[in-house]
């Protein structure tokens, strides 16, 4: 089953992901971000990265989380393989805890496809389709 769908943009690239719930939505978004950059099949689970993020705005949390994953890739050379996200909504506050298993990028092992440089608010959307939650987000290349 396809985890995400690529959405066209003139200069850059976007994705749409769907999930049964928020947890699945963020886990699939994590997969999409790393899979857009590195061929997933060759990634092993050697180390883990974890942390938490929050916001009073759901779209801001999506962009913050996406940009954090891009930072892990660009600075820590980390690429994910397996993703766990716990999502909490309390009144007007959204927060998530993530744990990602993956490894550091090795040029000779990993096939790098493209580099997402930033997540943006451009045409960003959260929607519900056939009972599933969906996100559309675009990245600057």
């Amino acid at each position, binding site marked *: 089953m396809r985890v995400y769908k690529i959405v066209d943009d*003139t200069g850059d690239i976007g994705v749409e992901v769907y999930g049964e719930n928020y947890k699945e939505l963020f886990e699939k978004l994590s997969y999409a971000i790393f899979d857009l950059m590195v061929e997933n099949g060759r990634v092993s689970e050697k180390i883990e990265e974890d942390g938490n993020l929050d916001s009073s705005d759901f779209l801001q949390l999506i962009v*913050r989380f996406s940009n954090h994953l891009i930072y892990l890739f660009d*600075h820590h050379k980390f690429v994910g393989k397996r993703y766990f996200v716990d999502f909490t909504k309390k009144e007007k506050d959204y927060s998530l805890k993530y744990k990602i298993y993956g490894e550091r990028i090795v040029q000779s092992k990993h096939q790098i496809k493209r*580099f997402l*440089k930033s997540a*943006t608010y*451009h045409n960003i959307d959260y929607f519900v389709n056939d009972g599933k939650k969906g996100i559309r987000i675009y990245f600057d290349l």
Partner: protein
Amino acid sequence: MKSIRNFLKRIDESRMIIQKGSLDGIDVDCIVYLNEELEKNLQDDALLQLVNVARLPHIVKRSIAMPDIHSGYGFPIGGVAAFDFENGIISPGGVGYDINCGIRCLLTDITVYDLKDKIKDLLTRIFLDVPSGIGSDGRLKLSKNDLKRIVRKGALWAVENGYGFEENLERIESGGFIPESDFASLSEKSIDRGLNQQGTLGSGNHFLELDYVSEIFDENLASSFGLFKNQVAIMLHTGSRGFGHQVCSDYVDRFTSYNLKEKIILPDRQLVYASFKSVYGKDYYHAMNCAANYAFCNREIISFFIKKSFEKFYKTDKIGIRLLYDVAHNIAKVEEHTLDGKTKKLIVHRKGATRSFPKGHKDLTGLLKKTGQPVLIPGDMVSGNYIMVGGEKSLYESFGSTAHGAGRLLSRNQSQKVAKRKDVIKEIEKSGVFVLSQSRRTILEEIPEAYKDIENVVETVKNAGLSYPVVKLLPIGVIKG
């Protein structure tokens, strides 16, 4: 509902207008520089972005888009807007993610005939010496103190540390550094991302090209700039790398939090802004200038590597490599412009637009004060590039700005689909261009068909008097990031 396109009227062969007052909330005109051919490819969403910019507070005179307009984030690519210095705003969306992405042109004493049989070997030498590609790290491992100095000194840091040349500084926009920068305005993440990427080309549409002068349009200016027929030149397109992206993301996030708190709703979240004189506005301006200085330094260091590659290859330092000019095309600057006969300080945003100051302008120095500022406009990797010169009219029409390139026509996905139908690399080589990249995908995404016709862009800005062609360059070797 009436499409936004219906409000766009042609003024003359190179300009179109949406008049102020014709749409809700626009108190200034929207001007797009387009000839009839380019008008056919104008995207509605890019036009809407131009109109959204006109709705920003304290915008001065007009919202402008260059002929290479296409959809961006917040502002359209090719967008120019100026805001009042005293009461106006600054917007990360008006600068872009790759802060001070820009073009630099180096000249040599070599002719294309000297290079004919050596192009593959020379380009391979440069490819090995200049780190490029996705997530590429540089050979320079910087300390936090080095980074502190780079964001303050820009290209001067490269000169002081043996990676650049003093004579280059007066050939870089703003002398290669902008003084109003502040390390304290940077996040830990941006500092992290800045440490390992100096002296790297990067990926995406960034490139390094070996070109030759194929056509001369203005003999006098060409001679003043040191250009001659068949001369080999090098064009370099890169910016502030992950560092600049992190700065932009940080401040879009910070401004967004403020808007959420104050319940400010914008037509597009990427249009977030802050009053220039507020703490938020000042912090962004200082951080943006850190990234601008980082980019000036990056292009100077890469030029140093290129010079060394040529010298190693030819086993002599008599190649005559020198800098023609280095221009920013993603930046916001404080400049003085004349409005209704009065000199006013403005915050000029150029998002995919190039400064285009004419001869005599007070901010130009040395030879360039007599000639006007060189304007570097790249096309696709086969059609070639133009060296132009700033036009007098740009000061009255576009806050001293002109186009920055051909402008994208196809999405990356569409480009790949077109490219898969043929042997792209073979076709490019058939056109006399040898191409290298860390990623085949990048070449497929950057095929010539992905871009608008550079000739239309150049003709439009020339007819509008924004800048004038001096020479045309044709590529013979291309490194795509």
